[in-house]
């Protein structure tokens, strides 16, 4: 019984991450949009995107690759375009680098990130 309680509490507490925590480094374009008050247009529910983004990305990748459906919604490219940050020289830093958007959460919860061994980790050059 005690064991179950401990398990339940752990799961409960770790899920708090999805509800608490402000992002340390949201990314240049995303910060702009947040200041303009437009975040809800893109991510209606922060909890949902934090918990469900692996699922969303996985379904989307199959739709794009296998069925040729190319929409901006849940596109990894779109994530990178908004959430990348530039450094002092105005050059984009890789989004999966330590201290950037993805790593700030992923390092804390201890899950590894495999996307950017293949996917481009900065926005396109002419953006």
């Amino acid at each position, binding site marked *: 019984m005690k064991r179950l309680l401990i398990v339940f509490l752990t799961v409960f507490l770790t899920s708090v991450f999805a509800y608490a925590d402000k992002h340390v480094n949201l990314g240049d374009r995303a910060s702009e949009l947040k200041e303009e008050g437009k975040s809800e247009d893109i991510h209606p529910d922060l909890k949902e995107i934090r918990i*469900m983004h692996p699922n969303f990305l996985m*379904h989307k990748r199959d739709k794009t690759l296998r069925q*040729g*459906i190319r929409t901006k919604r*849940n596109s990894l490219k779109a994530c990178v375009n908004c959430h990348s940050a530039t450094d002092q020289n105005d050059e984009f830093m890789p989004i999966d680098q330590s201290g950037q958007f993805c790593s700030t959460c992923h390092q804390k919860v201890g899950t590894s990130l495999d996307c950017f*061994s*293949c996917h*481009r980790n900065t926005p396109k050059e002419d953006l």
Partner: protein
Amino acid sequence: MDKCQTSIQKNKNLSRRDFIKTTATTAGVATIATGITLTTYVNAAGENPVTNEKRWGMLIDTNKLTEVDIDDMVNACQEEQGWGNEAHSTGNQKAGWIKKVKVKDKATDRISNLALMCQHCDQPPCVDVCPTNASMKREDGIVLVDRHLCIGCRYCMMACPYDARSFVHEALTDQKEHMPRGKGTVEACTMCVHKVDKGEKPACVEAVDSDAVIFGDLHDPTSKINQTLKRVQSTQIRADLNLNTGVRYSGI
């Protein structure tokens, strides 16, 4: 008498228990079911999956294709898809999505130049042998590698009759945004599927921009490729394997 009563009581208890059980399960199922539907991704954005109504193909006329054309095709592909500058791979380890091939007919000494890339077969051996379904054929005929599933076993490379596939032998950076590619997975010509889906033509076709390379929908009777294939002689490379390739050649 007592037994009768207790059994009646038991029956009552059972039915109460049954009632609680059924309502609880129905309520639980209903909640979970709605939860599942809520998290199901609904594609509202209006794009539809590709169908087999179209079949993309290419016709390469080796009589009209010059060596400069082929070099342009290779360069255009490298530019568009971001391969070719792997720093650590040597010789045959470097990626080669499209190659210039020069053949001489042994009987007549006639030399032909052609560009060889993934033939986008209708019966692709690479798709048959892939253990994880990473190597796949889209409904419209384009053969792709789903690199999310690729484990890098290279069996498809053994099976490909055209040596069309490449394995990434080193870690990569600065990939093209529309063409993710990474260490340890297999890749090949995608027929510029990212452009085709937008209504454009593959980069190699645009680089030649003449009748030497025609791209289009093989199923459409009004398309240039369909009509040309009806008029001129064409063949598939290794036609005896009966793979029904999407890329056809005339002049060899």
